[in-house]
């Protein structure tokens, strides 16, 4: 069964400056189909239309045209019914009461999600335990660190065991350890059956949580496939790392960039579109007494950087 389905979903913001009116197409008619239980990363540069799409899928924004269903419900028409079945985390927006202990917000959310009191208490304690937040339940939110606050935000979004989780930059501003904890909890929720729809600029989030990536650029989907094939499709570059039995001098090969050179090792980069891999490898094997060689795709960070760079250089 589909958790999310959209057809031609489009959002245009009207802008007015003085007497001049203009319009900005934030989402340019996207088609999406996401099965229940999938973990999808929705990526793209700032202003690409990610948050606007999430806001339409959660019923916060009305679309300009097109249709969408989440769990069989039309978000902007059946917003309250849908909200009972989904969880949302907006990294920039807090649903915690700033001056009260986070435990108070969890209790109130139990009532908002219509959980019986004992179930709400049990879930709060379970999540607090899972996120290592038990000692912090009685601490006012204003006294929590950003990482602790974000863990509470995610705990709050999981309180009612939602079927779909919409996460808009859930690890923004977190340190490495807090990011790892948050990712693990999201993965667990996904393994428990929840569909995860994630936006993030962090390659670590995407690689550790999502199996499918959807890239949006100027409001239109430009890639929809496995995270692993995102690298191959977006960047045709290959990275070759070799260890030599003898000292090496960096090669001068047209189309090959030396990224790093040490006494016995080299890291090279080239475009597989311009140079066949076998030709580069054969050349290297001929030049050096190779002890070990690895050919890999560039890291996901490079892919994301390439997407954003392309965006920046567009007219």
């Amino acid at each position, binding site marked *: 069964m589909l958790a999310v389905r959209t057809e031609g979903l489009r959002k245009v913001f009207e802008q007015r400056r003085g007497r001049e009116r203009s319009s900005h197409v934030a989402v340019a008619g996207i088609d999406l189909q996401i099965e229940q239980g999938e973990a999808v990363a929705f990526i793209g540069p700032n202003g690409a239309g990610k948050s606007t799409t999430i806001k339409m899928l959660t019923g916060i924004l009305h679309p300009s045209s097109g249709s969408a269903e989440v769990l069989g419900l039309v978000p902007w028409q059946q917003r309250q019914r849908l909200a009972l079945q989904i969880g949302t985390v907006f990294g920039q927006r807090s649903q915690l009461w700033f001056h009260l202990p986070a435990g108070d917000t969890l209790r109130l959310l139990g*009532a*908002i999600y219509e*959980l019986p009191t004992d179930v709400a208490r049990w879930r709060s304690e379970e999540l607090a335990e899972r996120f290592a937040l038990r000692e912090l339940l009685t601490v006012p939110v204003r006294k929590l660190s950003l990482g602790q606050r974000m863990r509470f935000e995610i705990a709050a979004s999981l309180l009612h065991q939602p079927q779909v989780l919409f996460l808009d930059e859930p690890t923004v501003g977190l340190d490495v350890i807090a990011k790892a904890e948050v990712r693990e909890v999201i993965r667990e929720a996904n393994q428990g059956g929840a569909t995860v729809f994630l936006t993030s600029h962090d390659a670590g989030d995407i690689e550790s949580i999502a199996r499918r990536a959807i890239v949006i650029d100027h409001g239109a989907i430009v890639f929809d496939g496995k995270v692993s094939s995102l690298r191959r499709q977006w960047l045709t570059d290959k990275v070759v790392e070799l260890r030599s039995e003898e000292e090496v001098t960096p090669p001068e090969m047209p189309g090959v960039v030396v990224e790093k050179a040490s006494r016995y090792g080299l890291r090279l980069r080239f475009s597989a579109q311009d140079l066949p891999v076998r030709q580069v490898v054969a050349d290297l094997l001929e030049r050096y007494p190779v002890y070990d060689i690895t050919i890999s795709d560039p890291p996901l960070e490079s892919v994301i950087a390439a997407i954003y760079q392309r965006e920046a250089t567009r007219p």
Partner: protein
Amino acid sequence: MSTADRRRFWPRLMLTAMRAQLAYPTAFWLTVLAMVLNDGVWLAFWWLYFSRFPVIHGWRLEDVAALWAISASALGIVQGFGGNLTRLARLIMQGELDVYLSLPKPALPHLLLSRVNVASLGDVLFGPLVFLAFLHPSLARLGLFLLAVVLAGAIFLAFLLLLHTMAFFLGRADLLADQVTISMITFSTYPSPIFQGGLRLVLFTLLPAGFINTMPVSILRSPDPRFIAGAAAFALLLGLLALLAWRQGLRRYASGNLFQARL
């Protein structure tokens, strides 16, 4: 969860909003006291005035005291417990409705009741104090006083709501809303007979303070069923218009990306 459990959410929300303000108890009580004193100073001015000129257009000190008791109680309840009402235009403009729109409760009452305006709680205390001190309380008069507070509160609520929802359509309505709110409060706290001619028409239509500043005479002194029915019908009409504007406005809501916390 039963229907009764669901209904319990609203008092629980109000209690949470109150506790959020009581996190700083000294500041809380000082603010309440400051508002009671502020209202008291206004009434003291009127007392000085009436000690020299005992009657203006048939109004005595008791009528002005009734006006202050009604308007302070009504506005205090509406702005005090619906603490986000006077911030609504800003919340809309800055795209801060997202949290309320992503939760499974009616967004409008949820956001209104999510904040207590502490200063307005001073008004909530001041109104009944004036009623008890100046207005010869009896059971019948208490009933009439409560009726006036409910009607005035309904008019304030509907009017301010309609005013603030203009932010959906105008883009920036916060400054306009602030100005008009001040005018509404000002005209609601002066005796009705001093406003005549075209202004009177405005005060019973565009800026409906006329309904409120007539209440001491038309409800407390000599209850007029036609006035009461008219005020109730007007409040209902204004309320329906405000809800319609809210529903239509949500279709135009543009959200935003400001960092936001629930204070």
